[in-house]
C-alpha cells in the first residue's frame, strides 16, 4: 500500500511538472509526417542517412517550438527498395496512422509508385528528396507531388556543361541498364553534342545494376582510346569498376567523368584524384554557417558524415515547415498552394519550387576529385555550382513532353 501510494504521488508530480514545462504544445495534437523510404535493400545506406537527417530535423523543430506551435511526429517505414512494399507502407501510413504529409521515397521506382497510387489517390502531399526520375514531375505529374532533388536529366546536363569546357573530343559512356542510367547518360550525350558539335561518342556500355565484373567493359573501352569516359555507376558498381580499372592504368589513359556522391566515395577508397565528379550536394559543397551547423550536429549524433541524401532530406523537411507556416494551416490544398512558387533558403542555398511541375531549381555540383586528410574518402575541389535554372527542362519542354506522352 505504501509503495503504490508513493507511485501515485510520483506520477502526479511528474504529470504536473510536464504540464508546466509544455504550456502550448501539449494542447494540440502533433503534425504527423509519414516517412517512407528504402531502409533496407540495394539503397539501404542512402535511405538510412536520409531518415537520420529527418529525425535530426524533427528534433530540432520540436526543440524550438514546433510548426505553428504543434510538435512534429515522424512515422518511419521501410519500403525495402520494392514497389509493392512502398505502396503498401505509404497507404498504411495514410489510412491507419492518418499522417498529414508524406516524405519519400528513395528509389525512383518506389517514389513514383507512391506518388501515383497513394499521394494522388488520397490527396496527400509527398515531397521527394532522393528519388529523382523526371517522370514524376513531367509525364506522370500530379499536383500533390513535389521534388527537391535535381532530377536525372539535370544531373546529366550539369556534368556535360562542365565536361564541354574540357578539351576532350571523344567519349565512351557507361551507365546502368535501367531508367536512371539510361536517362542520365542520354541527357549527358545530348547536352555535350549540343554544346560541342566536334565531340564524338565512340561507344556506349549498359551493364546491369548488379554487375560485379567490369573487366570486359574496361578493356573494350580502352581499345577504343577515348579522350574521356562518362559513367553514372555508383556505390558497389563504381567500387568494383574503379578497383578493376586501376591495374589497367585506366585513369592515366583516359579522363573519367563520374557520379561522386560521398555515399559512393565512402565505398570507393581507391577513387583516384583528378576525376571530374558530380553530385547533388554534399556537406563540403557549401561553406555556409547553416551547412556547418548541420554537418556538426549530424556527425556528432550519428558518427558519420551527412551524405547528400541527408542534406536533401533535411531540406525537404524544412521546406514543408516553411510551407505550412506560410499557409498558416496543415490543410492540404492550402499547403499545396504555399509550396507552389515557394522560395526557400536551405542547406544548398536559395531555391524555388516551380508551380508548373513542382520541381525545385536545386543545383548540381561538379568538381575534381581530391584526397583530403580530414576525410576517409575523396571530396571534390574547384566545385562549379550549376544552378537548377540552367539545367532544368524549360517550361516549354515540360509541356511538349507532357503533350507527347498524352498522345501516346
Amino acid at each position, binding site marked *: 500500500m505504501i509503495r503504490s501510494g508513493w507511485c501515485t504521488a510520483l506520477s502526479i508530480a511528474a504529470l504536473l511538472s510536464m504540464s508546466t514545462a509544455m504550456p502550448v504544445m501539449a494542447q494540440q495534437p502533433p503534425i504527423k509526417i509519414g516517412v517512407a523510404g528504402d531502409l533496407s535493400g540495394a539503397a539501404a545506406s542512402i535511405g538510412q542517412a536520409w531518415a537520420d537527417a529527418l529525425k535530426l530535423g524533427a528534433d530540432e523543430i520540436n526543440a524550438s517550438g514546433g510548426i505553428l506551435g504543434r510538435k512534429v511526429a515522424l512515422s518511419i517505414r521501410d519500403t525495402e527498395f520494392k514497389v509493392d512494399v512502398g505502396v503498401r507502407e505509404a497507404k498504411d501510413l495514410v489510412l491507419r496512422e492518418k499522417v498529414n504529409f508524406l516524405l519519400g521515397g528513395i528509389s525512383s521506382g518506389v517514389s513514383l509508385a507512391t506518388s501515383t497510387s497513394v499521394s494522388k489517390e488520397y490527396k496527400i502531399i509527398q515531397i521527394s528528396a532522393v528519388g529523382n526520375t523526371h517522370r514524376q514531375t513531367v509525364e506522370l505529374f500530379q499536383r500533390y507531388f513535389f521534388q527537391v532533388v535535381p532530377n536525372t536529366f539535370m544531373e546529366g546536363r550539369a556534368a556535360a556543361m562542365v565536361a564541354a569546357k574540357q578539351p576532350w573530343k571523344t567519349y565512351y559512356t557507361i551507365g546502368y541498364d535501367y531508367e536512371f542510367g539510361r536517362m542520365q547518360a542520354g541527357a549527358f550525350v545530348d547536352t555535350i553534342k549540343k554544346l560541342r558539335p566536334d565531340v564524338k561518342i565512340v561507344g556506349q556500355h549498359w551493364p546491369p545494376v548488379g554487375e560485379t565484373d567490369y573487366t570486359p567493359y*574496361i578493356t573494350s573501352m580502352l581499345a577504343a582510346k577515348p579522350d574521356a569516359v562518362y559513367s553514372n555507376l555508383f556505390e558497389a558498381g563504381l567500387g568494383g569498376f574503379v578497383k578493376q580499372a586501376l*591495374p589497367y592504368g585506366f585513369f592515366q589513359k583516359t579522363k573519367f567523368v563520374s557520379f561522386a556522391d560521398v555515399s559512393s566515395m565512402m565505398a570507393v577508397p581507391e577513387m583516384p584524384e583528378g576525376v571530374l565528379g558530380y553530385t547533388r550536394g554534399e556537406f563540403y559543397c557549401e561553406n555556409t554557417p547553416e551547412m556547418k551547423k548541420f554537418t556538426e550536429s549530424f556527425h556528432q549524433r550519428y558518427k558519420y558524415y551527412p551524405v547528400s541524401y541527408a542534406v536533401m532530406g533535411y531540406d525537404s523537411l524544412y521546406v514543408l515547415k516553411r510551407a505550412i507556416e506560410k499557409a498558416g494551416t496543415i490543410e492540404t490544398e492550402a499547403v499545396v498552394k504555399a509550396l507552389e512558387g515557394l522560395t526557400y533558403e536551405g542547406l544548398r542555398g536559395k531555391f524555388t519550387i516551380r508551380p508548373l511541375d513542382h520541381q525545385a531549381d536545386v543545383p548540381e555540383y561538379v568538381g575534381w576529385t581530391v584526397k583530403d586528410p580530414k576525410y576517409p574518402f575523396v571530396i571534390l575541389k574547384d566545385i562549379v555550382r550549376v544552378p537548377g535554372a540552367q539545367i532544368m527542362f524549360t517550361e516549354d519542354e515540360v509541356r511538349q513532353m507532357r503533350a507527347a506522352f498524352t498522345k501516346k
Partner: protein
Amino acid sequence: MTVADVIGQFLSGLARAGVLFLIAAGLSFIFGVVKIVNFAHGALYMVGAFFTYSFAVTLGVPFWASVPLAAVCVAVIGLAMEVLLFRRVYGRPVADQLLLTFAMVLIIHDLVRLAYGSNLKSVPRPPLLAGAVFLGDIVFPSYYIFIILTGLAVLLGFWAFLHKTRLGKTIRAAVGNREMVACLGKPLPWLFTAAFVAGVFVDGLAGAIGAPLGGIRLGMDFDIIILAFATVIVGGFGSLPGTALAAFIIGEAYAFGIWFMPAIALSLPFIIMAAVLIVRPWGLLGRSGGGEL
C-alpha cells in the same frame, strides 16, 4: 582494333571465366555427389567474402592468411548446415530441397545484415597482386592470373581428390551405387558430409578470393549465382571439367559479346544455356544418365 586489343579482351573473358568456375565448381560437385541443388551456395560465397573482410580489414590479418581462414570458417558453417539440416532432405522431392536451401538464403542474408549492416565493404588487393603484367601493348592485372591459377588448382585438386585418395574413390563409388557402398560398411552419411563440406570450402574460397575484385555487399550473391547455375547447366551437373569448359565459353562469349554485340551480351550466357539444353540436356560434358563423377 589491334591484335593486342583482341588478346586483351580474350584475357578479360578468361578472368571472368576463372571467377565463374570457382563459384560453380563447388555447386556442381555438391550436386554430383549428394544430388541436391543448393540455392544457399551463393549466400555462402557472400559469407566467404564478408569473412575475408573481417579478417583482412577489421582484424588486420595478412591477406594470404585471411583467405584460407575465411574458407575454413565457411566450411564449418557448411558442416553444421549439412549435419543439422541438409542431410534430412537427401532423396526427398526437389520442392522440399528448394524450400530448405532457399530458407537458408534468407536466414544467411538476415544474419549478414545483423553482423555487417547494409553498407558496402571493400577489401584491398594484396600489394603483390595490385598491379598488372605488361606484354607490349597487352595489360593483364596480376590478380586475374592468381584467380585463373587458383581455378586450375581447384580443378586439379578435385580430380586428384576423387581419383587418388581413398576417401575420394569411396565417394565416387557411392555416387555410382549407394547401396553397395553402404553394404560394404562405409559410413554413407559421413561420406556425403565430407563431399558437401569440400564443396562449401571451395565456395568459401571463391568468396574470399573474389572479395578484392569489387565491392562486398549484401545481395552480391544474387547476381552471380544465376550465372553460376547457367555455367553448371551448360557444363553438365556434376562434371567439373564440364563446368570449367562452360565457364570458359560463357566468360569469352560475354567478353566479346560486350565488345561486338553489347545489346545482347547480357543474354548470351542464357542463349548458350538454352541451346545446350535443347541439343544436350545433360550438358556439354555431363552424362545422360547422371552417375559417375
